[in-house]
């Protein structure tokens, strides 16, 4: 209750000089306002930058099949085929940190023929509709193929801008048929321009078709690595239906008991894909996503704790690092600006509080004469400066939010409200009030009542 009375006395004192109080607190208003506006605009830009970087693949994970080895000779990643389209679907279904997945079958580079022109794209991928989602890639003309096309191994494809430029010479490719290894594919859509990737490879030089189409109609078989693995296993016989892995002497998965087999018959892996690409919900979630996927694939592939994984998960650590450092730098920059403006504001508060203490020396003397202790005086002046700063902070928050609103409305800059910045502003302005108000308040509390009463 006494605190309330002190608060009231402080407010009365401040109200006695409304204009001066307002001007004093202007420093804090502008400081906090600038911080809030900068934070919101900065956060907005940072989010926009992060989104751009993320579209470069910062949140993308790639799952490759593991390596086959024979007699101590490793054949490198992807030399055994262990990933299935069902793995891809299960990852999407069961890992909460995963936003989208796509199974990918790569085809050997082969010429794509349209009319009297031909062109060998950099990449010919068979995949699922999730591919566009994972790569954050839009179809600007036509429409993407769908799950039904995948099920039916439909003869459709999407092509990138470079392929369009090479083959179509200004006319619209949508609805036209191109030929790839004597299979006619109807172009259903054109992909948006993406430019080169970080290694300088043209990402637009691409043809995408349903993976079933690529695997069964175009390649006939999967990549050359399978042949290498087969050769490594020391057999040239064609893999019989039902047993996928040649050289079955070397068990790929932990042996199962008879009961286990009866309870859950192991799915027959007839069909494999070359890789699965996964998009985590955000760049920060890639670590969680990796753990979830590892756990899930261990379960699905029956890999015990001591066994060697039959898959590799890779992420874009380099891009993620760039992203994090951008964010950190942005935040630090804002922090420095905030500190400077608040210190300037605080010095303004201290200056006026000192003037106020001098000016009100007689009042202080009087208050002491009627029984105020030094601590009472200290508390009162401290309350005044904190109230000034908090009022300034509140106005600053309004000003900052207003500014960022106007900026987003008029200039169309991206802004993002930041609760952290608001809380920090309140805390910092209160601290500024205490730190810069303390000296004047202390000075006031140390006055000698006799001198103070006689002060002219």
């Amino acid at each position: 209750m006494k605190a309330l009375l002190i608060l009231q006395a402080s407010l009365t004192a401040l109200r006695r000089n409304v204009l001066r109080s307002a001007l004093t607190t202007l420093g804090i208003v502008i400081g906090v306002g600038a911080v809030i506006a900068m934070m919101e605009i900065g956060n907005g830009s940072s989010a926009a930058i992060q989104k751009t970087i993320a579209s470069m693949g910062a949140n993308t994970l790639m799952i490759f099949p593991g390596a086959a080895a024979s007699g101590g000779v490793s054949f490198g990643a992807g030399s055994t085929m262990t990933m299935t389209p069902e793995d891809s679907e299960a990852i999407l279904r069961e890992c909460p940190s995963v936003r989208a997945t796509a199974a990918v079958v790569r085809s050997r580079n082969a010429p794509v023929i349209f009319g009297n022109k031909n062109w060998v794209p950099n990449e010919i991928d068979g995949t699922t509709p999730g591919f566009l989602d994972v790569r954050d890639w839009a179809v600007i003309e036509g429409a993407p193929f769908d799950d039904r096309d995948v099920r039916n191994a439909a003869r459709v494809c999407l092509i990138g801008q470079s392929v369009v430029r090479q083959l179509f010479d200004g006319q619209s490719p949508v609805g036209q048929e191109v030929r790839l290894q004597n299979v006619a594919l109807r172009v259903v859509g054109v992909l948006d321009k993406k430019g080169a990737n970080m290694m300088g490879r043209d990402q637009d030089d691409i043809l995408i078709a349903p993976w079933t189409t690529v695997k069964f109609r175009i390649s006939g078989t999967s990549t050359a690595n399978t042949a290498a693995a087969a050769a490594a296993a020391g057999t040239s016989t064609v893999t019989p239906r039902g047993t996928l892995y040649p050289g079955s002497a070397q068990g790929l998965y932990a042996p199962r008991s008879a009961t286990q087999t009866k309870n859950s018959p192991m799915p027959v892996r007839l069909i494999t894909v070359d890789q699965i690409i996964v998009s985590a919900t955000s760049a920060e979630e890639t670590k969680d996503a990796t753990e979830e996927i590892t756990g899930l694939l261990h379960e699905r592939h029956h890999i015990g704790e001591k066994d060697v994984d039959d898959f590799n998960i890779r992420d874009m650590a380099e891009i993620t690092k760039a992203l994090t450092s951008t964010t950190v730098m942005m935040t630090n920059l804002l922090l420095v600006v905030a500190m400077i403006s608040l210190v300037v504001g605080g010095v303004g508060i201290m200056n006026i509080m000192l003037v106020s203490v001098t000016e009100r020396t007689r009042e202080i003397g009087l208050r002491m004469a009627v029984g105020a202790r030094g601590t009472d005086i200290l508390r009162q002046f401290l309350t005044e400066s904190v109230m000034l700063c908090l009022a300034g902070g509140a106005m600053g928050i309004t000003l900052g939010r207003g500014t960022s609103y106007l900026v987003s409305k008029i200039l169309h800059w991206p802004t993002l409200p930041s609760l952290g910045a608001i809380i920090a502003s309140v805390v910092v302005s209160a601290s500024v009030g205490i730190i810069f108000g303390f000296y004047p308040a202390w000075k006031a509390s140390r006055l000698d009542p006799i001198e103070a009463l006689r002060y002219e």
Partner: protein
Amino acid sequence: MNLIELRDIRKTFYLGEVVLPVLKGITLNIAKGEMVALTGASGSGKSTLMNTLGCLDRPTSGEYLLDGEEVSRLSNDARALMRNRKLGFVFQNFNLLPRTMAQAQVMMPLLYGGTHVSQKDAKQRAAAMLDRVGLADRMDHQPSQLSGGQQQRVALARALINHPPLLLADEPTGNLDSQTTREVLALFRELNDQDGITILIVTHDPKVAANCKRMIRMADGLIEADEITAGGAA
């Protein structure tokens, strides 16, 4: 029973090399209900004595019993509480807070009493006190809207809000014209007679001194004369 008992109070100021004795051994008793004028030429030490009596300053040596309590050795905070509970101050220049309503001025000492007084009680007490000094219709006026006499009465109401046994007035009529001086003095007299408040007035004005019941004249740090005045006899 004596409200004030001073025994051999001495106060010496040390200004660098210079040693300046201001009070040179004052022994004085003031009983409850007295109305005393303290006079003397400037430099005679009456202000210093006033500050000592008002618990604003500590004597260098000697004993000071206020209402039976030894206060000359108390800490700053304890003396602050003493001022709040036992003393009321009235100043020559009123010392009102600028741009503050009369009622709020009068309530101010309640903030430092150490005991909680609700806002409603405080307002009521302030209103009653302003009514007592005849300013019931001026409660929401600021000092600039009040005449000198009215301002001094607000200051008086403020001094009395905690019902102190002792009222110290330092030249209370120094800034007032003769008409207002008479009114204020009448009010002092009334408070002394009806409410039994002990009043000590520091003054140069013989008319004011004559209005009191007892007059103490100081000279050169000592009490020169202590007499019952005509006002007291009347």
